[in-house]
């Protein structure tokens, strides 16, 4: 029987380490269990010399272990030293595989069978997870590794990389890039295409293959790995090739399954082992980004099991360390400890009336606001850190029509009025306590559609777009509430001011949210179905058959609705609508729609007259039917090309008309000169079709992929719809990996250059444009301050009067920035012809 500890802490990242140090300082009997043979594996695996950042700076560090911004090596050395100094009891090489038992007596078992007993458990295993292992037999002496630190390390070897995602491709290319190393590199992919990798990586891999620098094997799997040899299953049968080293990059399994299985009961379901509902550690929703349900003391749904750190939804090192300290204090019986972010929240709430404490306000928010109803107090705290609170006097404008802003508001106290008619502010529609407004901002950085005024004194919470999206992903209740409200408002907007929410309620009830794949047809031309659709996310393209050809009519971004014409005038579908990219649409059944029109004859009449303008495009197409020739083909193909290159999810994209571009690179130079000396666009790179070039530059996606995994939430959407990265970026590179268009670069901001005059007159400095790497390096060394590498991308020249510098600096008019819905409209053909 192993010795029983008061607390077992799993994972020695910043969270676990800080917890263990606190336990040691308090004299609690403890064990810190780490699967690696060193502390803090996530940080250990950062790139050598990486500058670790200590954000947010307003948060104080509360831990027995020091942490300050600095080089990775320095941070790790400090932690190793202080762990020893505190006499922390660490068990290395111990990967916990199961946890059973109950509060007061847990049994933790490692993979190799070692056991630990503890009264409480703190889970701090981060979100990195475990790499997926090769499933074929591995013979004695064979080398299989799941990480590649330095591709320059290996020479004269036969290396097989398994898995052709981005990580595998980058590793294979790294190993093969220097012919001096004389490695024979083979990359093995199970399927025929490279669906999970970035297009740029695939293209580069294919280029290297064409040059004979590495071997790509598709539709191939490994069936056995032995010393010096690997057996591959290919389409043409079994093949054996020499192999000294296998690098397996087949993704990693998130730790969620392990966490859910903690103290869970299992049952047999459809032949598989499944967790009995209501047992184990529960998560807030099935969504990928959801976190475990936690109490304010970090206790999970299994009493005695606590979850902290990145796994609890706090990915910054400082947060992690504070939580490690706090959780041990709680376990030690300290009930008065306020979380370290308390002063930040207190300062935020100070502007609200009534002099209430932070806890009071949190309780009020949680009770009053519909979308917060099933949000845990801990999650609410985190949400508040990313949000603003406001108090408005009666009559005060909260935001005005056409204001910029992409945040969402929730009314904690009071009510507001929406001025639905811009010409007559006296007509208002009320929104009451507990409800939300400004939710359209979640779709994209669109301007506000109407002015909103406080109808009485109001306390409101303003959630940033990122915070709101995270809330929707992790709280199914909030998601349902927002969906319902936004459908209702969309309908009211469609019909103008003539209707009330009661009128549209039946239609809202019957609305259905649907997911559509890229290319999936939603409406087929000639059909007589009568449903109406709203694009909630993604975008659609409208096409029409003309003379046997599919002609591209127009592009519908999120927020558009379509299909209403057939309902109103009863005619068959006049064109097809299909998804440009993976999208989410709302289907409103046609009969409900018709019932609504039937009961409102005036409404129907107005709808008919409103439609006149929408018919214009169709009329134009019909009138030109016979004269349509190559211009239309060209237009349709160009549109398709642009959609294939990500314009389908763009809100604003830089295009270069190569019939006008003289290659002066003034666009790049201007970009660099107006942005810290680094260019955010690569003019030459990128695809071209019919002289229309899509350079490597941010498309300001409707739903930016880059935002997905940013620990400090540094990527946000600005007032003009631009997606930008703020100064809290910690340089982890997640966004660079997540952007499918390869537009983010990681670089250090160089010191300022000598001025233009000095260059013109005395030739000082490197001149206009991005300075060469050598100059930047030298200048940075001369300056002597360390400049960390951070993520850098186009910000659409936000804050620069006059707008995008790249466009303004183009002498010939070749560089243009366009919104897809304007650029991809057949109406433009008139001017093209």
């Amino acid at each position, binding site marked *: 029987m192993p010795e029983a500890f008061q607390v077992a802490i799993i994972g020695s990242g910043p969270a676990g380490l800080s917890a263990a140090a606190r336990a040691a300082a308090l004299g609690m009997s403890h064990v810190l269990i780490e699967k690696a043979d060193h502390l803090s594996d996530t940080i250990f695996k950062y790139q050598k010399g990486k500058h670790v950042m200590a954000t947010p700076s307003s948060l104080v560090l509360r831990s027995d272990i020091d942490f300050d911004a600095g080089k990775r090596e320095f941070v790790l050395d400090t932690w190793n030293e202080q762990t020893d100094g505190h006499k922390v009891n660490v068990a290395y090489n111990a990967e916990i595989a199961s946890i059973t038992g109950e509060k007061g007596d847990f049994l933790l078992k490692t993979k190799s069978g070692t056991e630990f007993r503890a009264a409480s458990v703190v889970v701090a295993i981060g979100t990195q997870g475990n790499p997926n292992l090769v499933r074929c037999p591995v013979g004695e002496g064979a080398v299989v590794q799941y990480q590649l630190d330095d591709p320059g390390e290996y020479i004269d070897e036969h290396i097989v990389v398994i898995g052709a995602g981005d990580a595998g491709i980058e590793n294979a290319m790294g190993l093969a890039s220097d012919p001096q190393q004389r490695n024979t590199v083979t990359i093995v992919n199970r399927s025929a295409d490279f669906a999970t990798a970035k297009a740029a990586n695939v293209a580069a891999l294919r280029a290297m293959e064409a040059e004979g620098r590495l071997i790509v094997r598709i539709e191939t799997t490994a069936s056995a790995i032995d010393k010096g040899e690997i057996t591959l299953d290919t389409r043409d049968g079994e093949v054996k090739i020499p192999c000294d080293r296998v690098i397996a990059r087949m993704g990693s399994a998130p730790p969620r399954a392990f966490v859910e299985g903690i103290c869970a009961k299992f049952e047999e379901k459809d032949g598989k082992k499944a967790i009995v509902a209501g047992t184990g550690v529960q998560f807030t929703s099935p969504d990928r980004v959801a976190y475990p349900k936690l109490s304010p003391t970090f206790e999970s749904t299994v009493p005695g099991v606590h979850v902290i750190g990145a796994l609890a939804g706090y990915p910054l090192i400082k947060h992690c360390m504070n939580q490690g300290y706090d959780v041990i204090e709680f376990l030690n019986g300290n009930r008065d400890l306020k979380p370290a972010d308390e002063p930040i929240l207190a300062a935020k709430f100070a502007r609200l009336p009534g002099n209430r404490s932070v806890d009071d306000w949190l309780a009020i928010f949680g009770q009053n606001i519909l979308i917060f109803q099933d949000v845990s107090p801990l999650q609410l705290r985190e949400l508040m850190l990313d949000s603003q609170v406001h108090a408005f006097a009666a009559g005060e404008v909260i935001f005005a029509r056409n204001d910029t802003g992409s945040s969402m508001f929730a009314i904690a106290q009071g009510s507001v009025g929406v001025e639905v008619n811009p010409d007559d502010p006296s007509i208002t529609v009320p929104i009451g306590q507990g409800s939300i407004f400004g939710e359209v901002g979640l779709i994209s950085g669109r301007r506000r559609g109407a002015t909103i005024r406080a109808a009485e004194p109001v306390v409101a919470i303003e959630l940033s777009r990122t915070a709101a999206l995270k809330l929707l992903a992790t709280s199914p209740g909030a998601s349902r509430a927002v969906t319902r409200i936004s459908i209702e408002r969309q309908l009211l907007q469609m019909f103008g001011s003539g209707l009330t929410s009661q009128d549209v309620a039946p239609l809202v009830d019957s609305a259905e949210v649907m997911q559509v794949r890229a290319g999936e047809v939603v409406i087929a031309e000639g059909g007589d179905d009568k449903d109406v659709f709203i694009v909630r996310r993604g975008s659609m393209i409208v096409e029409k058959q003309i003379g046997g050809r599919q002609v591209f009519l127009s592009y519908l971004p999120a927020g558009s609705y379509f299909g209403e014409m057939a309902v109103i005038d009863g005619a068959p579908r006049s064109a097809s609508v299909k998804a440009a990219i993976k999208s989410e649409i709302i289907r409103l059944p046609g009969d409900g729609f018709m019932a609504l029109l039937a009961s409102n004859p005036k409404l129907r009449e107005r709808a008919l007259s409103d439609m006149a303008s929408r018919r214009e495009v169709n009329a134009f197409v019909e009138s030109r039917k016979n004269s349509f020739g190559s211009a239309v083909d060209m237009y349709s193909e160009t549109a398709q090309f642009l959609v294939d290159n990500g314009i389908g999810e763009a809100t604003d994209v830089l295009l270069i008309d190569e019939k006008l571009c003289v290659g002066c690179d003034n666009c790049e130079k201007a970009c660099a000169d107006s942005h810290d000396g680094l260019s955010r666009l690569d003019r*030459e790179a990128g695809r071209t079709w019919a002289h229309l*070039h899509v350079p490597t530059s941010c498309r300001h996606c409707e739903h930016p992929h880059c935002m997905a995994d940013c620990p400090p939430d540094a990527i946000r959407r600005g007032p003009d719809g631009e997606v930008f990265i703020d100064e809290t970026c910690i340089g982890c590179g997640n966004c660079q990996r997540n952007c499918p268009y390869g537009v983010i670069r990681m670089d250090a901001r160089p010191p300022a250059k000598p001025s233009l005059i000095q260059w013109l007159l005395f030739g000082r400095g490197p001149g206009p444009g991005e300075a060469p790497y050598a100059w930047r390096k030298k200048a940075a060394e001369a300056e002597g301050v360390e400049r960390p590498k951070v993520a850098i991308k186009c910000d659409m020249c936000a804050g620069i009067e006059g707008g995008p510098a790249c466009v303004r600096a*183009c002498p010939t008019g070749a560089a243009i920035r366009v919104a897809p819905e304007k650029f991809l409209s057949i109406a433009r053909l008139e001017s093209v012809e």
Partner: protein
Amino acid sequence: MASLPENDTDFHAARRASDHESFLVHRRMRWAKVAGALCLSAFLGYFLIDQQPRPNGGSWYGYTLGTIGLGLIVWLSLLGVRKRNMSEGRWSLKAWTSAHVYLGLSLIVIGTLHTGFQLGWNVHTLAWALMMLVIVSGLYGVAVYVLLPGQLSANRKETTRAQMIAALAAIDRQLKHAAQPLGREQSDLVIAALEQDVFGGGAWARLTGRYPNCATRRALCGLPDDFRTMADNTGPEERVRVLLRRRDAQLGQIRRHLRLKALLEVWLFVHIPATIALLAALFAHVTSVFYYW
């Protein structure tokens, strides 16, 4: 069929303010109209105003034209600064270039009328001649700006310059390998091709795209398709030949790229120095006029 979200695109459009049109037709050729009007009034003035004793730079009308011309030239020269100075504000280089081209052309009329057709061998005529040189080179510039970009794009075929160079390096590595089994004479040819500085040949070669001493070509000639060995067209010679042809094609693309870029830039080597000389000549012209008044 469908409706776009309300009030969404217009404000973006206002901020972008980038209509898809070239500098020559910018804003319905606003600056062509301005320049045309300027020329027309200069002509009218020249023929309607009775200049005493005869039309020249010294009459009050001549002074007017001279002042306008000088102002224009100074402003036109400032394009070089504007282009390199990325400052905030609602200006666009396209608008500047548009105005530059058309107002620059109007100088032919204004400057020449200013002389009153009194040309001779002096600093005044030198200034006029330099101005004409700048203008003529500018005309060439506009011509290549209109004609060549399409070719540049077609030749590039989505590859960047760096990629072209990398592709060449890759072919070279394979060539080096493939040439090992060749005979002495033939491998010397390949080595000569590999060692040659492919971009050498000077400005003339770059502008014309002709590289008469190209060692790759010579190597190809030295390894002719030999009908007697046709049976063996997978042998080392054939491999080298294929690679040499690939190298030749790759070189061709790079050289066409360089040639087009050179043609697009070469005129600036006249336009800018001549502008500087013009400014100096104008300075001499103006001081001498006032000095000898």
